[in-house]
Structures are given as structure tokens and as C-alpha cells.
């Protein structure tokens, strides 16, 4: 790292374009791949609608049913904590809001820095807990692949480097910020080729679930 500023400007510059391009291309391709397949027409007499139930499930599926929560309390709780924490850090930190505003034109109020800082520390801890869980719980251990661990890593590193940069624990700052941005870029590049697609496709999946069950008169 002989020229930290050059590194930062490259990370903020051409590399960002590349990462964003790969992300957008890959993600839109995936969504098109899904939707274009369509569904065969359903000739059975419906008992209920599809659209309403589908939208409902998009929201309600975020909350585990009591039985499942009891059986998998750690899994569900840690999952909630790290997802919420990640969203808070990503969307309610003022520098991130500036970034999103510059790319998407959307803006909203943020949280004070120390609050976001505390949330990020909790999120990092929760992510580590989720990794330990994945390595030790028999089901997760059995079904996890290299991809799961890769995705964990590329999700963890932006949080870690963001924390380190905010606290100026890597010097000089352009190196720290550049590293954080680069980790985010790696996350974006890897995104469309891994289970990270769930960030977008979950909504499609939940809708289909709600729609299928709703058509049969069941709230799923």
C-alpha cells in the first residue's frame, strides 16, 4: 500500500462501477430467469385469491411461528439480530445515506453515529455466533457448502472493515476506507452467483408461497 489515496480513489472510482455493473447485471438476469419461467395455468377451482395472500405472506413469513421458534430459538433470534443490525448499519448510517442518495436519489433521516456503532458491534458478534452455529448444529453442518462459508465471509468483512474504518483502527484512513469499500465491492460481485440473491428473491418466493396456499384458502 504505497499510495493509500490512489487505492481509495480506485476503490471509489472504476472498481465501484465494475462491482455495481456485475451486481446489477447478475441480479437482473436472475430475476428475469425466474419470472420468465412463469407458471402453468391452474385449472382447479380456487378457494381464495392469490395477490392478497401473496403479499400478506411476504410480510408475515418474517416472523417464525411459535412452535418453530421454540425448537430453534437461537437460530431465529440470532438471525433476526444480525439481519436487523445489518440493515440498520447499512441504511441508517449517515455516510451510507449519502452514498445511497447519490446513486438512487433516495434520502431519509439517519441515526446518531454512536448508535450505529453500537449496533454494528452487536451485528458483528451475532454474525460470529451464526458462523459457530453453522459449524456445530447437525442440520446446518450437514447442508452447508463452501458457498455458505464464502458468503459468510464476504458479508462479515464489510462489517468488520467498516467498524475498523469508523474507529480509525487502520492507518492511514484512506487505506481503511478503501479496504471497506473494496470488501463491499467483493460482496456485490459475489452476490448474484450465490444465495445472496435471496435478498431479492425471497419476496418472490414468499409471494408464490402465499399465492399457492391462498388459492387453496390457507394463510401461509
Amino acid at each position, binding site marked *: 500500500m504505497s499510495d493509500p489515496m490512489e487505492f481509495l480513489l480506485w476503490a471509489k472510482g472504476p472498481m465501484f462501477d465494475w462491482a455495481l455493473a456485475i451486481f446489477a447485471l447478475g441480479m437482473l438476469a436472475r430475476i428475469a430467469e425466474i419470472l420468465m419461467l412463469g407458471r402453468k395455468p391452474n385449472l*382447479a*377451482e380456487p378457494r*381464495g385469491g392469490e395477490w392478497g395472500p401473496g403479499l400478506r405472506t411476504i410480510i408475515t413469513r418474517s416472523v417464525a411461528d411459535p412452535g*418453530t421458534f421454540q425448537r430453534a430459538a437461537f437460530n431465529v433470534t440470532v438471525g433476526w439480530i444480525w439481519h436487523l443490525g445489518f440493515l440498520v448499519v447499512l441504511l441508517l448510517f449517515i455516510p451510507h445515506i449519502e452514498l445511497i442518495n447519490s446513486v438512487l436519489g433516495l434520502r431519509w433521516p439517519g441515526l446518531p453515529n454512536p448508535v450505529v456503532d453500537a449496533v454494528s458491534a452487536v451485528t458483528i458478534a451475532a454474525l460470529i455466533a451464526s458462523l459457530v452455529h453453522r459449524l456445530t448444529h447437525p442440520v446446518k453442518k450437514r447442508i452447508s457448502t463452501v458457498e455458505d462459508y464464502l458468503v459468510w465471509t464476504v458479508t462479515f468483512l464489510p462489517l468488520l472493515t467498516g467498524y475498523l474504518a469508523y474507529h480509525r483502527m487502520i492507518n492511514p484512513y484512506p487505506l481503511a476506507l478503501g479496504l471497506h469499500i473494496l470488501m463491499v465491492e467483493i460482496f456485490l460481485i459475489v452476490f448474484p452467483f450465490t444465495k445472496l440473491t435471496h435478498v431479492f428473491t425471497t419476496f418472490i418466493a414468499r409471494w408464490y408461497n402465499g399465492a399457492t396456499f391462498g388459492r387453496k384458502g*390457507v394463510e401461509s
Partner: protein
Amino acid sequence: MSELSLERGLAAFREEMDAPVAAFFSSCVHCGLCAQSCPFYVETGDPKYTPILKLEPFRLVWEQEFTLWGKIKGTLGLSKKVTDEMLAEWEELLYDSCTMCGRCSLVCPVGNDLQYMIRKAREGMVASGHAPEGLISAASRAVHTGSPMGLKWKTLEVQIKHVESSSGLAVPLDKEDADYLVLLSSMEIINFPEYLEAITRIFDHAGVSWTLSTACFEATNAGIQIGSKDIAAELVQRVVDAAVKLRVRNVISPECGHAYTALRWEGPNLIGKSYPFRVFHIIEVLDELRTSGRIKTEGREMDRLSMHDPCNLARKSGVIRQQRNLMDLVAGNFVDLKEHGKYQWCCGAGGGVSSNERAEELRMVAFKRKKAQIEEVEPERMVTMCATCRTQLEEGLEDFNMEVPVVGLTEMIADHLVEKKKPA
């Protein structure tokens, strides 16, 4: 003579891909919660029974042939091919340890309808020749004789005569323009003959116009169980032909789970046409009669009763309130299982598992989840509306030395009918 082959299996997998499947596989994050909703995993503790893992061969085909990344991986030689060996290994996972109960579909946090995909994956298993012997035999008997258990009309005729002499009522056969064509299940005919007498009496009491058909009496569908839309279509077509011939307005599916699913939800799509009649489960019909005041009952069962909702009826078809309304008529001491209705736990026998002799031991282990539910509530008797569930409950409770008799809801209603006063 053509043969089932890996190629045909893979082609079947490809054919089954649709937008929901693609969305589901794109969204799975390997959280493992589906395992927590599967009695086979919960009672064995063996993570190989994790629902999403059962779908791995199907997922591989999706990834390799329907995603950009999968195609890139393929050209780089990085894809794992689906082989006969893999499908052979997966046969147990897709058949012995899955009843297609759909609980995983309700629990998956990203919204995956795993049951939907299991049904589709079985198409590929069948076409590649990797389905269990027990199911093949059942399908064979169903196609050749009309009944998966090889039951013939002759045997049913004997039962009909019994019912007529016992009740003093006539069982209509091949009556044209009736309101309801009644179908039966072989399991029911053999194990629970009281069902036929029950509906004969209830329909007489309520003044319902109904009939059996000598051309087709079987509601169950071994094609659905094994997962072959071709076989399933052939079996459904028989029902449709019989119904059309008699010009009935509605068809009733008996106290069975998958028969209702097969007829009500899959049937029209299997044969490629909507029905000129409507389909109901007997419980729906009875509840409809109750609301229109055509069923008058007296007296109540006062022992502590609880209920098992057949998965295909409740979770997969939305018939949940109706059986409880009917219980209210005839039960004075009813308590629901803690997780009931759409969240109730599978008995472990549906989806073809009970026809699969190889899976008997596993089926009994899975039953322990249901047993735990029952023990939690301590009923004196269990009520249910499916012959397979009922058989599994009886066998299971007996295996575990629990003295909890199981009774069908229809017969319980019939037992409490107010007798019509005969004109003097």
C-alpha cells in the same frame, strides 16, 4: 418396449421447472429451519432428512440448466452431474422420509414451498426408475384393477348389502343426475366399513341426492403418491368419466387426505381441462348441511376428545373450521392439540409412505411426533377424517401401548343423528 432412464428423469426434472421453483432455489439460505418442522428429522435427529436436502438432485438441474452462473460453471467443467447413483441414494429421502405434509412449506423463512417441489421432484424419480417397490405395486394395482389394494367391486358389493340391511336404507348405484357422486377409498372400505353406512344414514336424514358409480368407486390416486402425472391423470380421468356419465353436479372425496388433493387441486391440471362438476371433501359437505340446518343431532360424546387434522385436508386445502364446527355438534369435551389446524404435525403415513413397506420402521419413528402431541393433551379418544391417518394413529398408539381409540368424524356425526320419526 421403452424403458425408464436417467435421461427421461432429467427431462422430467427440466419440465417441472417453473418460476416458483426458480425463486425457491434462489432464496434458500441453508438456515435449516425446515428440518425443525419435519417429523422425520425431529424424531430421528438425522440431518439427512432435512427437507431442502431431499431436493438436491432437482436443485442441481435447476442450477445447471436454468441459471447463467450454472451454465458458466458447466462450461468450466465445475458442475456436479446428477447420476443414477445419486438418484438411487435420494430415493429413500424423497419417498421413505417424506409424506409431502407441507409443514416445511409453512415454516421456511424465505417462503420456499418445499412440498410443491418434492411433488415435482418425484416426477423425475419415477421417470428415471427410482421409485419404491411398494408404490409401484400400488400404482400397478390401481391402474389394472381400479384400486391400489386390488379391491374389486364384488367386495364392495358385499359391504353395500350389509349397509342396506343394517340401516334399512338403499345405497343408490349409478343414479343419473344426482347431486353428489360419492367416492370411497379402498383403505376405508377394508378397515372402516362404518363410513359407508354413516354417509348412507346422514344423506338419508338430510335428504341428499347421491349415488355411487359402478364404473369408478376409488377416490385415491396412486399416481399422485408415486409422483407420476401420467398415471395420476389416468386415474383422475376415470372419476371424471364416471361423473360426466352420470351427470352429477358434485363429486365427494371420502375421509382421505391425498384423494382430496388429487381430485380437487391437481385433477383438472392433470387432464388439462376444468371439471363440469365441483369437488368437496365429505367434511365440507357435512358442514354445509349443518349450516343449512339439514343435520339435526342429539346428545354429545362427553369423554375428552381431541382431533388430528389430515395434512392434505387442513394445511394443504384449507378445510380447518369445518371439522371443528361438526365437533361442536357432537362433542361436549373437545380440546385441540396444541399445534393444530395448519400447524398440526403429520402422522407420518401420508404421501405414499404407508404404501412403502421399506419405510415402515421410519414411519413409526416419525409417528413419535404425533404421539408427543397427543400425550401433551391426554385425550381419551382421537377423532380424524382420513383412513390412512386413522390406520397410522391406531397402529402407532398400539405400538406404544397407548389406550387411545381413534374414531372417524363422519361416523360420530351419524351416531348422533336424530332419528326420523316414521309415519305411523
